[in-house]
C-alpha cells in the first residue's frame, strides 16, 4: 500500500506570498496515494526536517513529496532527512513550486493551480519510485600515466608528491618525449634539455614513481578506482641492473640506421641510446636491424660489454596490474607534410620541417648545432619559413590551428639570425597568433631583428640551379613573390598519434573528428573524460605549447589525487537497467552510450522444451552515468533509467495534463 506524505513549504513569504499554500495542501490531500499533508514555514529548517521525520514514523509514510524549492537547491537535504528517518532516500521527490512558480508569477489565482499541478506531478512520480541503493566501490590508489613526455612526467611527479604510487608507461626507450628533441623554448629561449632533464631525473629517482620504457598498454578493462591493465614490456636485450651505460657497446656496434630522435638527419647504431641524457640511461638493442637477430651473426656488443649486461635471450614481459586512475599523456605527432606536393618535401632535401630544424640547431644534433642544409652541408644564407602546413587547411590538412607554430617559427627565425649572422629569413604566414604571456613581445622581437613576414601562402617550390625557388603571394601587396632560398622550413601541424583512436578505444573515451581525445566538458571539465577515472594531459587532447601542457598535467594530477583522497566511491544509483525478458539484443543502446557502459551478455533460458542462449544488453553500473540516451534508443522498452523510468515520466505527463 502506497502511503505518500506531502510537505508544502511556505518558504516564508517566498512561496506563501504568491501561492495559496493552504489550498495546495488541501488539493494534495485528494491525490491518489496521499495519506498525509502538512505545511511548514521553512521545511528545510531543523524544525521543518524534524516534522518530516516525525510524520514518516507516525503515518508510516513510504513516499515523501516536498513541495518547496528547486531540487537543485535542497533535494540532497531532504533525501538525507528522509534517510535519517529510515526511509530510502530515493523515495523522496521534490515539487519545485518556488523557482518554477511563486517566483515567476504574481497572481495567486494562476500560481496556486499551477502549484497544485506541480505537486500532482511529483506525487504521480514518487508513487512509481522504488528504493535505490548506491553501491560503494573501493579505490586502488595507484595511478597509471600513459606517455613519458613532459605532460606525463609532470603529472607523475605531482601525483607521487601527494604520496601515491605512479607508473609511467613509455613506448620509446627513454622518457622525455618531444620536448627532448627541442633546442630552445619560447618565449624565454632557455634551453629545452636544461629544464627537462632535471625533471626526467627527478621522476626516475622518485621512490613513488616507476618508469616502464619500451612498454605499451595492451588492454584496459574495469572502471574508476578499479582498472585492470595489461602492459607489455618489450625486451631491451639489456640487463638494466648490470649496465653501467659506459657506451662501449654502442661505439663498437657495426650496424646503424637513421636516428628517429634526430628526425632521420643523423644515424644511430643498432644498440643505441636515443640521446645522451636518456632516462633510463641504458642502451637498447633494435632487433629489427641488429645482425645478431637478423643474421644470427655478430654479438660484438656482448663481447665488449665489461659488465655482461647484454642479454640477447631477454623476452617481452606481460604485466597485469590494477590501477585506480589513468592519465592519458600520449602526446601528438607531426603532420606528414608530403601531403603538400607543391612544397616538394621528400623530393627536395633542403625542404625540412620545424622539428628537423630543431635538431639542426641543437648542439646534441647531427651537425653539432651548426645549421647546415641537408643536401650539401652548406650554410644557408636565405631561409624561408612556411606556417600552417597541415593546420587551418581543410583541403590538405586539418581545419584547426596548431597553436604552437607561430611562436616556434618566430623562435627559429631568431635562432637563425643568432647562429648565422647576416642570414635572411622570410616567413609566409596567414595570421600571427601570439596569445600568451610575453608571446607578442617575442614575435615583435623576431620582426625587429629583420625577419620578413609575408602574409600569404606558397603555391610552389622548385629547385633551380642549386637554389629553391619559392613562389607565393603577398596578399597585403597583392602581388606574386618569388624568393630564392637555400633552405625551406615547414611549420608542420601537431596532429594526433596515428594510433590515438585505438588508444581511445582501450580507454573507453571518445575522440574528436581529428583523433584528439575529448574532454568531458570543453569549459568546465577540461581534464576529465567521459570515463570516470580517466584524465587527459598534454597534446593528446589538442595542440598545446609547453606551459599549457604542464599546467594541464598538474590539473590532471590534482583530479587523480582528489579521487585517491576518498577511501571508496559511492556510485550514483540512477543508472540504466535492462529488463532481460524484453531485450531483443539489438544492442542499439551500446552505440549511443557515451560511456561504453553497455556490453553484450549471453544468457541461457528455457524456451518451451529446449534451453536456448541469446544475447542481451547489460549495464556496467560502474561506468553508467545515467544520461538515459539508451532508453530512447531501445525500441522494445527493455532499457530503463532508474529514477527516471518510462513509467514515471509517462505518469508525470499524465498528471500534468489532468
Amino acid at each position, binding site marked *: 500500500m502506497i502511503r505518500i506524505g506531502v510537505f508544502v513549504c511556505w518558504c516564508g513569504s517566498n512561496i506563501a506570498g504568491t501561492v495559496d499554500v493552504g489550498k495546495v495542501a488541501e488539493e494534495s490531500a485528494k491525490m491518489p496515494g496521499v495519506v498525509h499533508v502538512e505545511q511548514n514555514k521553512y521545511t528545510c529548517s531543523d524544525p521543518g526536517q524534524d516534522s518530516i521525520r516525525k510524520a514518516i514514523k507516525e503515518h508510516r509514510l513510504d513516499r515523501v513529496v516536498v513541495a518547496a524549492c528547486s531540487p537543485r537547491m535542497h533535494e540532497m537535504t531532504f533525501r538525507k532527512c528522509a534517510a535519517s528517518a529510515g526511509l530510502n532516500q530515493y523515495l523522496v521527490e521534490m515539487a519545485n513550486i518556488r523557482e518554477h512558480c511563486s517566483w515567476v508569477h504574481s497572481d495567486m489565482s494562476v500560481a496556486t493551480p499551477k502549484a497544485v499541478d*506541480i505537486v500532482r506531478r511529483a506525487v504521480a512520480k514518487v508513487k512509481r519510485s522504488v528504493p535505490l541503493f548506491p553501491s560503494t566501490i573501493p579505490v586502488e590508489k595507484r595511478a597509471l600515466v600513459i606517455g613519458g613526455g613532459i605532460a606525463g612526467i609532470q603529472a607523475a611527479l605531482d601525483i607521487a608528491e601527494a604520496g601515491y604510487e605512479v607508473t609511467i608507461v613509455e613506448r620509446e626507450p627513454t622518457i622525455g618525449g618531444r620536448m627532448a628533441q627541442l633546442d630552445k623554448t619560447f618565449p624565454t629561449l632557455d634551453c629545452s634539455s636544461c629544464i627537462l632533464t632535471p625533471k626526467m631525473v627527478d621522476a626516475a629517482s622518485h621512490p613513488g614513481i616507476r618508469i616502464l620504457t619500451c612498454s605499451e598498454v595492451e588492454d584496459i578493462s574495469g572502471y574508476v578506482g578499479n582498472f585492470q591493465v595489461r602492459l607489455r614490456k618489450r625486451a631491451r636485450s639489456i640487463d638494466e641492473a648490470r649496465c653501467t651505460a659506459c657506451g662501449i657497446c654502442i661505439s663498437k656496434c657495426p650496424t646503424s640506421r637513421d636516428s628517429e630522435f634526430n628526425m632521420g638527419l643523423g644515424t644511430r647504431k643498432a644498440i643505441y641510446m636515443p640521446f645522451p641524457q636518456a632516462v633510463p640511461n641504458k642502451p637498447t638493442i633494435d632487433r629489427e636491424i641488429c645482425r645478431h637477430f637478423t643474421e644470427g651473426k655478430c654479438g660484438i656488443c656482448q663481447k665488449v660489454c665489461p659488465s655482461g649486461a647484454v642479454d640477447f635471450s631477454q623476452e617481452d614481459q606481460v604485466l597485469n596490474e590494477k590501477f585506480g586512475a589513468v592519465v592519458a599523456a600520449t602526446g601528438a605527432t607531426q603532420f606528414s607534410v608530403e601531403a603538400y606536393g607543391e612544397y616538394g618535401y621528400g623530393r627536395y632535401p633542403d625542404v625540412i620541417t620545424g622539428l628537423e630544424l630543431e635538431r639542426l640547431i641543437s648542439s646534441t644534433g647531427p651537425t653539432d648545432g651548426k645549421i647546415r642544409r641537408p643536401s650539401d652541408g652548406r650554410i644557408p644564407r636565405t631561409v624561408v619559413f612556411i606556417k600552417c602546413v597541415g593546420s587551418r587547411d581543410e583541403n590538405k590538412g586539418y581545419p584547426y590551428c596548431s597553436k604552437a607554430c607561430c611562436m616556434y617559427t618566430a623562435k627559429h627565425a631568431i635562432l637563425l639570425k643568432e647562429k648565422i649572422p647576416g642570414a635572411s629569413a622570410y616567413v609566409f604566414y596567414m595570421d600571427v597568433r601570439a596569445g600568451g604571456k610575453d608571446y607578442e613581445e617575442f614575435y615583435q622581437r623576431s620582426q625587429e631583428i629583420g625577419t620578413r613576414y609575408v602574409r600569404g601562402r606558397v603555391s610552389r617550390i622548385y629547385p633551380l640551379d642549386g637554389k629553391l625557388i619559392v613562389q607565393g603571394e603577398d596578399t597585403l601587396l597583392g602581388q606574386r613573390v618569388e624568393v630564392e632560398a637555400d633552405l625551406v622550413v615547414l611549420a608542420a601541424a601537431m596532429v594526433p598519434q596515428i594510433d590515438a583512436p585505438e588508444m581511445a578505444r582501450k580507454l573507453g573515451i571518445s575522440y574528436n573528428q581529428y583523433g584528439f581525445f575529448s574532454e568531458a566538458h570543453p569549459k568546465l571539465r577540461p581534464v576529465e573524460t567521459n570515463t570516470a577515472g580517466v584524465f587527459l594531459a598534454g597534446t593528446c587532447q589538442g595542440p598545446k605549447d609547453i606551459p599549457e601542457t604542464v599546467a594541464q598535467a598538474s590539473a590532471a594530477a590534482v583530479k587523480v589525487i582528489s579521487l585517491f583522497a576518498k577511501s571508496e566511491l559511492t556510485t550514483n544509483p540512477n543508472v540504466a537497467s535492462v529488463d532481460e525478458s524484453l531485450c531483443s539484443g539489438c544492442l542499439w543502446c551500446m552505440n*549511443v552510450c557515451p560511456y561504453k557502459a553497455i556490453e553484450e551478455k549471453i544468457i541461457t533460458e528455457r524456451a518451451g522444451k529446449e534451453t536456448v542462449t541469446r544475447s542481451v544488453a547489460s549495464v556496467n553500473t560502474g561506468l553508467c552515468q545515467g544520461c538515459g*540516451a539508451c532508453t530512447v534508443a531501445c525500441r522494445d522498452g527493455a532499457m530503463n533509467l532508474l529514477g527516471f523510468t518510462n513509467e514515471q515520466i509517462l505518469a508525470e505527463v499524465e498528471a*500534468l495534463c489532468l
Partner: protein
Amino acid sequence: MSLDWQPKIVGFTCNWCSYAGADLAGTSRMSYPASVRIIRVPCSGRINPVFVIRAFQRGADGVLVAGCHPGDCHYSTGNMYARRRFQVARRFMEYLGMDPARLEIHWISASEGQKFQEVIRNMTDRIRAMGPNRKMREIL
C-alpha cells in the same frame, strides 16, 4: 480565443542546463505566463518523442523540449541524439497533422534564464492564438 485562457504546455527539460535555466529565471524573478509545467529529465537524450504524443493525447496544448546547447551536454553527446531524433520526429508529427507551433525544441543553458522566459512567453502567445489543441487528444 479569449486572452485569459491559459494554455497547458508540458516542458521536458534536461537537469543540467534547461532546468537550471528555468531555476535562474525564477531566482531572477523573471515572470512569464503560468502555462508551462516542467518535467525534469537528466538529459535531452532521455526524452522519447513518444512522450510528446502522449502529452498531446492527455490534453497538452503545447510541448517544449529543452536541452543543453549542442557541444555543452553534461553527458557530452545526449543532445546530439536528441537533435537527430526530434528533427525527424517533429517533421513526422507535422506530417500527421500536428500544428508546427505546438512543439518547440530549444537549447537553453543554465545561464539563459532570460531565454527561458522569452521562449515561454512567445510559445504561450502563439498557442493562445491557436486555441486549445484538439488533435490526437482523448476525451474523458
